[in-house]
């Protein structure tokens, strides 16, 4: 092996594909060539250092929230564009229909035809109505405020809460700083419980609430001394994805497994504690 061949051998060494006989040749060459010996040593060191760099990295929650927010905004813009296109198409269709109707009737439109045309102009084609309805529903959902970080204060007694049309019996836990009022609601028997230890409780709670919203769930927060309990109500089908999104927060101390057999709306309890 000569010095020129050493470089190719070093690439094979980095790739972990250097055959044993070539390895021996490389070593033999290195013993008589200080420059190549140095290159071999640096390659081995480089390989060792590179292997310590993890191919995956925990994504900071801020970065997760940023890309999800950007995609959500893009989706909303797309819906608006789609609606605008439908309105344009429907308006053009109305103009053509009215024009054709007038032409066929010698320029005098009966009252009923004129009313029909006005009705179509006012309401749009059936497809347009469907899009408008979808848009209105989504806009309405968008317009809703994210779940408040703190639940509204309520009297410290059992109460019935309406959620998704169902009445849920809620147990109220008295908050130490609420002066006889409750600061949060705990629904009975969460499907799974998790514990997280974080540097910044406020930031972590905000991010978890955002993520719950991303996965079409709702989160309510119960403030505690040095931490908080987050009760996340979510569709069971989305729960695993939601938990994987929260996982970078160091989801540890699992108290109960999330069963794969769960279905419908379930509740998760995430206990967040400050470091």
């Amino acid at each position, binding site marked *: 092996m000569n010095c020129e061949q050493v470089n190719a051998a070093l*690439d094979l060494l980095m790739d972990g594909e250097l055959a044993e006989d070539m390895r021996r040749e490389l070593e033999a060459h290195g013993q008589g060539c200080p420059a190549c010996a140095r290159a071999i040593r640096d390659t081995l060191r480089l390989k060792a*250092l590179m292997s310590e760099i*993890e191919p995956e*990295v925990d994504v900071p929650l801020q970065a997760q929230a940023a890309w999800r927010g950007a995609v959500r905004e893009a989706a909303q813009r797309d819906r608006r564009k789609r609606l605008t296109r439908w309105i344009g198409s429907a308006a053009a269709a109305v103009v053509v229909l009215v024009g054709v109707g007038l032409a066929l009737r010698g320029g005098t439109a009966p009252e009923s035809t004129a009313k029909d045309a006005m009705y179509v102009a006012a309401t749009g084609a059936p497809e347009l109505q469907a899009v408008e309805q979808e848009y209105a529903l989504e806009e309405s959902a968008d317009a809703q405020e994210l779940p408040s970080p703190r639940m509204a204060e309520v009297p410290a007694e059992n109460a019935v809460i309406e959620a998704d049309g169902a009445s849920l019996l809620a147990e109220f836990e008295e908050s130490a700083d609420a002066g006889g009022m409750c600061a949060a609601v705990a629904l009975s028997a969460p499907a799974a419980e998790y514990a997280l230890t974080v540097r910044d409780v406020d930031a972590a709670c905000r991010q978890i609430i955002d993520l719950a919203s991303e996965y079409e769930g709702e989160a309510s927060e119960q403030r505690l001394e040095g931490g908080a309990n987050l009760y996340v109500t979510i569709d069971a089908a989305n729960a695993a994805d939601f938990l994987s999104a929260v996982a970078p927060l160091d989801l540890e101390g699992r108290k109960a497994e999330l069963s794969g057999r769960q279905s419908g709306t379930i509740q998760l309890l995430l206990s967040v504690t400050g470091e």
Partner: protein
Amino acid sequence: MEESTLIRRASQGDAASFNALMATHERRMYAVALRMCGNHEDAQDCLQEAMLRVYRAISGFKSQSSFSTWVYRITMNACLDELRKRKNRPNTSLDGLLDGGFSPTDAGESPDGYAQRQELRRALLECIRELPEDMRAAVVLRDVEGYAYEEIAGMLDANVGTIKSRISRGRERLREKIGARAELFDRPDV
């Protein structure tokens, strides 16, 4: 839910499916962005841009190719575009890089040993960051992310020979940089 189902739903505008689909790729996408940019702030911007590009293009994704290769190709392009835009910006700190992304240290490691390893890692990341962008991209994808040469060629839109050459030259430069910092890398205790 299977990836193909999520892709189909996402391409029909289902944001929840898109989020679930990309949640399985975001850690590696972010790692690529972090190694390319050298700081969390820029990596976050690149991740966001890459996600938007994937969202806009997913309806045109051809299922014959690997979705992950397609996603990392978009990620790498977003990083390279971002780096070109920011070429004249002063270098930012690498401090944030050591927050994560390295293998855990041995439990029995002394505080001094840990500090020295951290110093070495920081030096290596600086060396990688000093590589020209095309070399850096190829080296990161091969030696950090572990992709095959053919996959990297697909991601960087170059032929395999070109990629092998970039990686080889990139490694050679890294060896030279390591050699130039012999006082750090040659210490017997590291």
